[in-house]
């Protein structure tokens, strides 16, 4: 199983039936493909609708896209609204789970994913509102950078998207819960050792009392 699939499958297990969920572009979006049996969620798209679904075999509608401008469809029973309503839903605590990628995340739950000063400044889009308002914030990303450097730190160095906002970090190596004591290691991916997790994590890792193998097949 490749890294992205491991992450997406594990993220999907965090959803409960009926949850309102916002998925970021990239790996987070893949999680919708692996919903556990009996769990269905309502996907929110921050450009203004509930009930996002993959494009079916119908012709793409140029006016119906996800937050990455890719054509999608809307489920029967979906609802469309303007950007103020969309962010009232997001900021007002009506989104149960938001899943985002990260450039950096740290043991205090700080997240940085919107700019690298002097290099890349795409902008925060809706990310700052999502992490400030969603009930559960999950960072889903590959554990290290492409050249193997840590992305999970004691303290983020990049400009923050949100301060103390992250609840869980799900990577291809493990699952962390952000706690006042540090990052609690809840699960390791199949075949991954605690030492590997520690080596690839700059933050303080605390072994969870019920640590287990990530239950993905």
């Amino acid at each position, binding site marked *: 199983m490749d890294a992205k699939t491991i992450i997406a499958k594990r993220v999907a297990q965090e959803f409960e039936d009926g949850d309102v969920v916002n998925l970021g572009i990239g790996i987070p979006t893949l999680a919708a493909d692996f919903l556990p049996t009996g769990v269905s969620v309502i996907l929110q798209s921050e450009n203004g609708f509930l009930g996002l679904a993959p494009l079916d075999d119908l012709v793409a509608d140029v006016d119906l896209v996800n937050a990455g401008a890719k054509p999608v469809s809307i489920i029967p029973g979906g609802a469309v609204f303007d*950007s103020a309503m969309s*962010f009232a839903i997001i900021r007002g605590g009506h989104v149960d789970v938001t899943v985002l990628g990260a450039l950096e995340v740290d043991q205090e739950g700080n997240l940085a994913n919107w700019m690298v000063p002097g290099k890349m*400044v795409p*902008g925060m889009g809706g990310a700052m509102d999502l992490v400030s*308002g969603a009930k559960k914030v999950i960072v889903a990303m590959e554990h290290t950078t492409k050249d193997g450097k840590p992305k999970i730190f004691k303290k983020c160095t990049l400009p923050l998207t*949100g301060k103390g906002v992250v609840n869980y970090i799900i990577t291809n190596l493990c699952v962390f819960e952000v706690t006042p004591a540090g990052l609690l290691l809840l699960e390791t991916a199949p075949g991954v050792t605690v030492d590997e997790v520690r080596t690839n994590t700059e933050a303080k890792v605390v072994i969870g009392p019920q640590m287990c193998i990530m239950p993905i097949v």
Partner: protein
Amino acid sequence: MSKITTIEKALEFVQDNMTVMIGGFLGVGTPERLVDALVKKGTKNLTCIANDTAMPDKGIGKLVVSRQLKNAVVSHIGTNPETGRQMNIGELEVELIPQGTLAEQIRAGGAGLGGILTPTGLGTIVAEGKEIIKVNESEFLLEKPLKADVALIKAHIADTDGNLIFYRSARNFNPLMAMAAKVVIVEAENIVEKGQIDPDQVMTPGIFVDWIIKG
């Protein structure tokens, strides 16, 4: 007086140095005919308030490429490399605002509010230089209202009185911007006689709309 007009007449209201709100999310819901005509007209030094700067060949991105903007007040520029390039060499000033904050600032501008209080951006550089207000033990940022000289709006259906219906994700910032500008110009895909839209279906009341052109 009829609100139906030509693009040329409508764009007489857009002059150099003005602040212009333009609807759309990565080009979806952007009035492309109005943008194209504005590019052709060559109006300069505009401050553009929009969700994003789209792509170089789409929506607001075209106004960046044609160097008609001096300021962009947006939540995202990542899909338009030209915006980043002009920003880095100091030709274009970009103010990045969280998307939900931007939406509420525009709504506040149209709704006569003195601003909004939001938790979004607390503890980040977005909060720098802004007033923090405590309400019931929680902290909020004071974000001020945004207004514009002109708003360029895309609608799916307009009646001749300017009542509007939007379609799917092309709605986004359009209804909010239609409330927040002195002159509101709508590019409508379909124009119907007044009375043809059921009042319960109206998404933006016609009183907000000054001019309508056929999209």
